């Protein structure tokens, strides 16, 4: 693998990894439901970025772009649904604190 592509790939992968860490950390630590959804959004941005980089390196930009477009469309819908759930939860108990989400256990 030519040195510079490897260099580009490793830099981007490093930063995607950082994005990944931020996303996971925010999902695990936050107590607000919407921030969890934002965390997932961050993860997805990281993956799209990685896809684009891979496309750039392997000269398959056409394929990766179409994949990214599909992903973005799908993730928008998922975000909407997640927001919807958060909202209806708020309507039920007037709070979107994740600590209320622990009744089903055992």
């Amino acid at each position: 693998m030519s040195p510079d592509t490897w260099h580009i790939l490793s830099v981007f992968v490093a930063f995607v990894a950082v994005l990944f860490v931020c996303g996971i950390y925010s999902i695990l630590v936050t107590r607000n439901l919407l921030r969890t959804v934002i965390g997932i959004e961050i993860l997805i941005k990281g993956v799209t970025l990685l896809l684009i980089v891979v496309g750039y390196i392997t000269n398959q930009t056409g394929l990766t772009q179409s994949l990214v477009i599909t992903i973005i469309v799908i993730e928008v819908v998922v975000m909407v649904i997640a927001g919807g759930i958060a909202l209806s939860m708020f309507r039920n108990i007037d709070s979107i604190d994740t600590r209320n989400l622990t009744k089903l256990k055992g």
Partner: protein
Amino acid sequence: MPSLLVLIPLFGIILLNLPFRRLNEKYVFWFAVFLLSVQILFTISHHSLFWQQGMGYIDSFFKVDFAIDSLSFIMLLCIAIVSMVSLSVSRYTIPDPRERFKFINLLMIAAIGMNGIVITKDLFSLYVFLEITALSSVVLIAFQKDMNALEGAFKYLILSSIATIMMLFSIALILLVSPGTSFAVIAAALKESPNSAVIIFAMGIFICGLFIKGGLVPFHGWLPDAYTAAPSAVSILLAGIVTKVCGIYTAIRVIAFVFGFNEVIKSLFMFIGLFSILIGALAALGQKDLKRLLAYSSISQVGYIILGFGTGTALGMAGAVFHIFNHAVFKSLLFVNAAAVEKRIGSSDLDRMGGLSYRMPITGSTSVIGVLSTCGIPPLAGFWSKLVIIIALWQSGHYMYGTIAVLASILTLAYLLLMQRKAFFGKLPKELENLKDLKEVGPEFTLPSIILAMITISVGVFFPFVFDKFVVPIKSIFMQ
């Protein structure tokens, strides 16, 4: 022809949703029933010429060729059966026609998603249809919008998003090596490329993503919560088929045809399978809630499937697929009974139940059949598939796994008979006696449960016929 399974329902739904609402609400149920029965008919008689020419030209519309082999046919059959059952149960549990209209639409979308997964030959469209099924199941779980349902839905959503992110991550890494994303191309690319850490990392991530979707033990957190939170009709769909298609079928398809089998993956699957059998059964032993018990029991049964698949031999995989079919049938049977009980008593807490089979004989007896088939008692279907799996284990030399799997079926017997005794036998508690409408449930429940019970019995009794017609062709797929 396969496009019929995905295309027609979509157009149907679009048609239904647009014009005059009142008319559609009445006919949506029968339209859905029609579509699913067409699917059942197709899967059973797929060799007949009618399907080949008649619908051939629709396929030409799609340039993508579909992977229809006997493995997909069995899955399509399961999808159709379980969706039909869930449909008929929903007709009774969701009284308001407008709500039911939305419910049936979502159900149809979930069915489209699953059909898509089963017939796709492309890793990325696999992700797309996985996402469709996941999304529609999330909405279905959150359908009643009470606190529990939302909690279950949210957990399912978060975990399945994590799973999809993992899959996308691995697809991105695989694209480094393979020019396209269809199974054949990736398989070829992976074969030549040396065993590099990145590719193995990608494979590992993908497999774990599927494990989360399939609800195997270390990843199974969301499953019991999602099943108990969901309305009873949805938990039938979820337990019966969704986790199996999204998690297990995809694992089989991807591992067997894309990543290829090697000793390491086999031992991984075997270990995970065994682990989930044991933990699932042990956890189910101490449950107080009926649906939660059945959820853990399905984790344990899925463990059997993965164990069977992990042997790597053609017989083992055929046994696994056969167990998927059996499990879909008797698990949805048990959940139908749970739904009937919940409909009549209002709660699914085992301690408040007792002696229900006196008032609800059909539910009681069909649940006995379901219980016996799950435990693998000879005349019924469950026994044969478990037997095939254990024989495969034995032949491939994994004696220890085989013995533990057999012993675990004792645990299965324990918690299911415990459930049966607490819920259906024993004596009727006082507060249930005077409950006025504690009588047998309507045909929406009894009809599907009887049909499912009949399927279990007939598959069990006519096993040689079933073995040749279904299981042998599956073995041939995995042969090469």
